[in-house]
């Protein structure tokens, strides 16, 4: 068994593992990143609700804060688990990367560990302190969760930014000889990746919360509870959207300098030239672009504010150093940008109506948009990760180490990939089922609390009779 394995490995060396390795990392990271968004941003939204509840003695906001914190407990727990899986995968899937650069990229991870601790500890206090911690003391116990979510995210993104624009170390004969921790943490890409992802997290969490209540409003539950729940998610997310678009635009311009080949794939720039057109959508196959809309000179204009701006194309590097599937990178980039603008539009619509009439827009279309805004934010965020990760290929550390060199030499990744897909499908389904069950339970509680003067005595549905005692 072992001997035959060795022969196989010798016959088909490393690259055989790269595709399943990347697929597994993409699956687990793509799943975790959604939970991470809630871990980063949901605490702030819950604290906002509790703040309003305490400040204005608003029972509705208070009730929302309590309930959201329960959902947050589930999401943080599942996120902690899927995050742990990723820590193991760093070694199990990418031993080559860790062996060579662990001493460099590990330091931001160490800082992240610190904030992960604070987040988990104060989550334990905040989530389970509702009953016995007094008003503002309880609110303050949640502040470290929100802050450590932001700083923890910065630390992890620092690693990804470093992989895109590596620096801050020297190496000789494949061994690291010195490390400048500050430069590793704040590499060039960190300045745009950090705000871009943290804003994305707030948009995902905010719009997702808003979606839940928009669905309720569409189903006719037009009450204060639902409008408050919608507003607490929608307003912060919509306010941050224009900032996100600004940061994203800045990031794209910086990528044109820092990772020109990635940028070329994002914008279909085959040859380095001036007066480069901008392609909206379109599929690139063998030098032809099918079905896209061409805007002359626009790409040069966006990169350097003038049609004469020279944009580097992917012909600047040999074919082996270009990312695969340019059309995937381009289309995911377009989807991300497109959804960003649609979300901006929804926010502007609400702002306009509020300015003119001091109320929410009435048209059903607005609430339909609100209902899908959470999904749209998640899709946009995932597309962004596809752009940055697939766009960096074939490199894992840009220009220094290829993904093939980083991948494990062990077999069996296809097996672990299949198991992971099944387990994560179950995990995702169970998480959504639990959240829906919580929501049904809350609705039943609200119904039970409503005064029913001549109605039948309250029943507790499928609750066992014992439950009455608690």
């Amino acid at each position, binding site marked *: 068994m072992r001997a035959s394995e060795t022969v196989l490995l010798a016959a088909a060396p490393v690259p055989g593992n790269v595709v399943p390795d990347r697929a597994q990392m993409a699956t687990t990271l793509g799943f975790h990143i959604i939970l991470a968004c809630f871990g980063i941003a949901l605490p702030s939204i819950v604290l906002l609700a509790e703040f309003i509840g305490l400040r204005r003695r608003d029972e509705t906001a208070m009730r929302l804060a309590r309930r959201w914190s329960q959902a947050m407990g589930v999401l*943080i727990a599942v996120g902690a688990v899927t995050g742990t899986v990723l820590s*193991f995968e760093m070694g199990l899937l990418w031993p080559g990367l860790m062996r060579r650069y662990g001493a460099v990229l*590990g330091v931001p991870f160490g800082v992240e*560990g610190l904030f992960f601790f604070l987040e988990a500890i104060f989550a334990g206090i905040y989530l389970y302190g509702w009953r016995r911690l007094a008003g503002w003391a309880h609110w303050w116990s949640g502040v470290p969760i929100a802050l450590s979510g932001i700083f923890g995210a910065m630390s992890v993104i620092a690693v990804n930014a470093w992989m895109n624009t590596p620096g801050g170390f020297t190496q000789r004969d494949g061994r690291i000889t010195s490390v400048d*921790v500050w430069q590793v943490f704040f590499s060039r890409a960190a300045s745009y990746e950090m705000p871009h992802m943290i804003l994305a997290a707030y948009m995902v969490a905010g719009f997702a919360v808003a979606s839940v209540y928009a669905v309720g409003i569409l189903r006719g539950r037009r009450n204060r509870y639902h409008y408050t729940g919608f507003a607490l998610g929608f307003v912060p997310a919509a306010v941050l959207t224009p900032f996100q678009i600004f940061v994203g635009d800045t990031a794209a311009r910086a990528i044109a300098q820092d990772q020109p080949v990635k940028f070329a794939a994002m914008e279909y720039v085959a040859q380095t030239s001036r007066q480069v057109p901008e392609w909206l959508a379109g599929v690139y196959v063998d030098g032809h672009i099918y079905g896209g809309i061409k805007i002359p000179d626009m790409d040069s204009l966006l990169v350097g504010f003038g049609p004469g701006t020279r944009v580097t194309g992917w012909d600047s590097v040999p074919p082996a150093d270009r990312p695969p599937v340019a059309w995937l990178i381009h289309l995911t980039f377009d989807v991300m940008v497109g959804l960003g603008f649609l979300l901006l539009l929804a926010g502007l619509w609400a702002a306009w109506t509020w300015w003119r009439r001091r109320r929410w827009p009435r048209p059903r279309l607005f609430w339909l948009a609100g209902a899908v805004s959470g999904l749209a934010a998640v899709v946009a965020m995932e597309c962004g990760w596809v752009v940055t990760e697939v766009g960096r290929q074939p490199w894992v550390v840009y220009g220094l180490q290829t993904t093939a060199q980083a991948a494990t030499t062990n077999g069996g990744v296809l097996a672990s990939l299949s198991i992971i897909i099944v*387990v994560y499908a179950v995990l995702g389904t169970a998480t959504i089922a639990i959240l829906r069950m919580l929501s049904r339970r809350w609705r039943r509680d609200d119904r039970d609390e409503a005064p029913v003067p001549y109605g039948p005595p309250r029943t507790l549905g499928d609750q066992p009779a014992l439950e009455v005692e608690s």
Partner: protein
Amino acid sequence: MAAAVGAILLASVTLYAVLGGADFGAGLWDLLAGTTARGRAPRGLIEESITPVWEANHVWLVFDLVIFWTAFPHAFAAVMTTLALPLWLAVGGIVLRGAGFAFRKEITRLSQQRAAGAAFAFSSLLTPFFMGTVVGAIAAAAVPANASHASLAAWTSPAALMTGFLFVAACGYLAAVYLVVEAARRGDQNMQAYFTRRAQAAAIVAGALSLAALFELQHPDLAFFNRLTGRALPLVVLAGACGLAVLALLTAGRTKGTRVIAALGIAAVIWGWGVAQYPVLLPGTTVTLTNAGATQATFVALVVVAVAAVLLVIPSFALLFTLQGHRVLGGNDQGTHRAPNHRIM
């Protein structure tokens, strides 16, 4: 500096063992608590004791991994490659366990609660066992420095398997001792007696397995065994003494100090292992603390992170455990949240 980082790694491994290990052990007792009716009281106590703290306790694992790969990347890559299978199985256990535990709290239907509870309890057994085989394989000199493929033989040697069983028993022992104190604090004499019996049984099993593993280790690497019974002997003796002291205190019905002594015993085993290996990271190879791929700057950064952890994280943990000890944390949500079935009564 490398030695300091080695000590930091060992310290955080110790904290994971005495905090996270007890959580796994609690899952073991949950698994063995019997039918729904009989197991209601112990399961209720277990859940109440670990709900607010388990997540924070398990961050130590992530912290351990990060320090390991940052400070000693060559050894990390070798371990992750050679022992990929037991590590994957341990990860599987962690996923099932965390998800099962988180979900069980929120669901109210008994059948679903059983399923989530079973996932939680069964995986509490899996994870420490496979982590034990990983540690056993490292100690038994089965991880080569330039590993290029996974090895089944590395972690299925008698020494590695025995370490796996030892980890399960040690987790059960720690958890039972902690739960004795939790029961005493609540004035629940039935549960105190219940977990006292289990703590005693687990102590005897863990003690026997430690001795067996100790003697098994002389076969793969005699030098390591000699140091374990040489310069690490005081720690080995301390570990044994702590175990006997806990047994004696529990038999006498005393609870004061038992938790600390039990944890000290586990810490003595871990530090005994560290002292016996020092400065070698992978026994049987030439990979040491200083030549495993990191530089001075990395070590300094990690020491700074560790100091920050002591300043920020330790007081936060103290706050969490104090609040938990005074039973301030409990009841997820007044009014709307109903306790799971088994917490009632």
